[in-house]
């Protein structure tokens, strides 16, 4: 599929042709570890934000001796890449405290990275206090970036970056619209490759590609009609092979609430706000909340219900990482709510690099048979 080639190439590996070209042009790249980190601010500083991933990595033995086996495999994988020197192309890393795994990963990165590291302190509630905190944290991030890289982040730069990111999110919303069809215009695995591509290179070039792609996709049919329509929820699930594995069993994944998905792309930023930073904060707080947000479930569930309704979702797969308490708790609350509505949920606890296994195979198969009646 020629149309997908660019997205596949930029979605894997992490150091893709766009990254290489950016570096060769003498420009700087900053890695981020969580969808809570406001990339817009880094973009406004002329830096290229790249969401860190570890495609194809299965052995985390170096990281396991630093973190712990009960830390999630996403954080261990990122640390493993750092320890192996696979992130040498980065000029800096922004860490955060979304969860305990991230907090301890932040410590390790600070200790081991040898490049610019900034700790971005996340809020854990919704509301005005959190928005104010988020603004202050962005101000601190800007100050550190300006000082460390000798750049200026002027208000006009922020507004330009907001416009670029809004364009990305509008275009991705356009692609998502096409997933409402039966069959959808893109499969779940194809969509995830596009998602990852958008986090792994310059946004402007990505926007151009998507803009060109959208008309081509309008009449496309990915797979058969009438397959069970699934939504996938969870945290760090960035493995197209895993999605493909599920779809090959005879299902269409048509929607998501993933960190590598809706949490990154949903919602736009008010462009005419008097304070661009406050506008950025408002968008982050109004998107589907990470379950680390202690009072965020009801808000997120409202959005999820809308997805279920609009994308005619028949079943949900919760692909949560092993040892992720936040998603473990969210899965329970989600299951309780969905049960009331008669929507089946399959709980798939998985490791970050897992593409499928005997047990997952059996459980997915059984779930799909149940959906088909």
């Amino acid at each position, binding site marked *: 599929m020629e149309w997908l080639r660019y997205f596949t190439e930029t979605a894997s590996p992490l150091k893709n042709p766009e990254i290489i070209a950016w570096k060769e042009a003498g420009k700087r790249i900053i890695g981020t570890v969580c969808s809570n980190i406001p990339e817009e601010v880094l973009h406004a500083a002329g830096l290229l934000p790249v969401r860190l991933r570890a495609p194809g990595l299965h052995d985390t033995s170096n990281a396991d*001796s*630093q*973190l*712990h086996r*009960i*830390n*999630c495999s996403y*954080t261990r994988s990122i640390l493993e890449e750092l320890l192996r020197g696979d992130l040498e192309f980065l000029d800096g890393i922004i860490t955060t*405290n979304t*969860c*305990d*795994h991230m*907090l*301890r*990963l*932040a*410590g*390790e990165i*600070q*200790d081991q990275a040898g490049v610019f590291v900034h*700790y971005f*302190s*996340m*809020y*854990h*509630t919704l509301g005005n*206090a*959190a928005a*104010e*905190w988020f603004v*202050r944290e962005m101000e601190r991030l800007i100050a550190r970036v300006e000082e460390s890289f000798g750049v200026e982040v002027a208000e006009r730069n922020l507004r330009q970056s907001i416009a670029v990111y809004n364009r990305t999110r509008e275009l991705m919303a356009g692609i998502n619209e096409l997933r409402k069809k039966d069959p959808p215009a893109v499969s779940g695995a194809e969509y995830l490759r596009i998602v990852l591509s958008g986090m792994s290179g310059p946004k402007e070039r990505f926007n151009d590609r998507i803009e060109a792609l959208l008309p081509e996709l309008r009449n496309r049919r990915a797979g058969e009609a009438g397959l069970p329509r699934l939504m996938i929820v969870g945290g760090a699930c960035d493995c197209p092979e895993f999605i493909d594995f599920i779809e090959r069993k005879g299902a269409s994944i048509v929607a998501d609430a993933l960190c590598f998905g809706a949490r990154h792309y949903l919602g736009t930023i008010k462009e005419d706000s008097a304070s661009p930073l406050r506008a950025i904060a408002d968008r982050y707080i109004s998107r589907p909340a990470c*379950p*680390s*947000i*202690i*009072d965020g*479930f009801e808000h997120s569930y409202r959005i999820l219900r809308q997805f279920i309704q609009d994308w005619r979702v028949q079943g949900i797969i919760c692909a949560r990482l*092993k*040892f992720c*308490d*936040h998603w*473990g*708790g*969210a*899965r*329970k*609350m989600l*299951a*309780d709510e969905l049960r009331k509505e008669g929507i089946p949920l399959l709980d798939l606890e998985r490791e970050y690099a897992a593409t499928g296994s005997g047990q997952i195979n059996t459980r997915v198969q059984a779930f799909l048979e149940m959906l088909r009646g």
Partner: protein
Amino acid sequence: MGESFKRTMDVVDGILRPMAQVWKQSPMPPYEDYGHLFTELIDTNAEHFGDIAGAMANKDRRVALFEFGLVPQLFFAFDCAPLCLEFYPSFFTRTNMSVVYEFLDAAEEAGVPTDVCSTDRFILGAALSGELPHNSFFVTSSAPCDGTRIAYPILHRILDCPILFLDAPFRYDREAVQYYAKQLRDDLIPFLEKNTGKKFDLDRFRQVVTESNTAYEYLVDTHDAYTVMPAPHPGILRMFPFSSFIMDAGHARLTKTLRILSEDAGRRVKEGRTQGPFKEKHRVLWVHVPPTYDMDLFAWMEEQFGAMVVSNSLSSTTILEPVDTTSLDSMLEGVAWQGLDMTMSLMRFETEKLINFSLDAYARYNCDCMFVTQHVGCKSICGASGMLAKICRKKDIPVLFIEFDYNDDRVLPPQLMRNQIEEFFTTVMD
């Protein structure tokens, strides 16, 4: 569903109060010389829970269920009976393990993953079993950990009672403390006014904070006394003062207890009478939480190896000053800081800060070895193990990492833990 708070009061009336009497009338060996201190601590604990039972039956009072990240002065200012739920499991692990198993099972049956911290599973199980006190409300912050952040939203859905979520900042400067204090003023005080039907009384709050300041001075003095070698009190007593502060700061009963502890420690230091029943040979810093189900462990370590646990994370703070009572804002800032930087809230620290805090305590208490809990549900302390091990190697600090669940003796039974400790003292420290 059982009768609310019945199991708790059964323990208070059936175990705690008789135990306090035993310590008073015929103190148990080898700690006869400290019997009055055990009596005082157990009595205060019994009174604390008795007060909660009283508030349940009093239409003019409410029970304030709260979480680490907060201290209780504001609750006392509104005449509430506070219960810090994080300490609730250890109340049962010390007295009736079957209740602990039952509550953990209840949470797991309801779909809470087994790899979530047992403290949070216990609290959820207690709620599902109807044990949590009624006539209550919840206030929780987003610190210190992932378990907290998932337990309380679930709890809110299980119980039909008001809840307030506060955002605990994961930064460690004055701006962060002020951010938290602002939420106490703008969110917590109105919440308490609404749920108690009482108007906030600044003078009453100042009175409570002043009382807690007195208690705090005793607390700090007592812990200063533990820097003396040999330490003036047995290790088991080190477990309680800070937890008592989190449960009762601002109440006169706590001040009295801490005064007795402080005066006793001070007197022993002054008289050069700090040697306990066993010769002190080693001083242990226990990073994070020692097992709460094996209260004999400390005496065993002292007797077998002369090893005194002189400090642990439940008995720690970064703050060495009382709350400034000048104004509402200064008091809220002080109370916010205590909530953020005391006992388990320290787990919200960045790894480097957490390690530096531990190293400072190691030096301050003249320790010669370190134990680090690898609590099987705590992603935070487990995630810090690599850096801790590295720094201990660099500084030549003998360290023992013990993987267990501090609430659940099925994960590492007491004898197996003792085997590890014995091996450490007979090989590394010999």
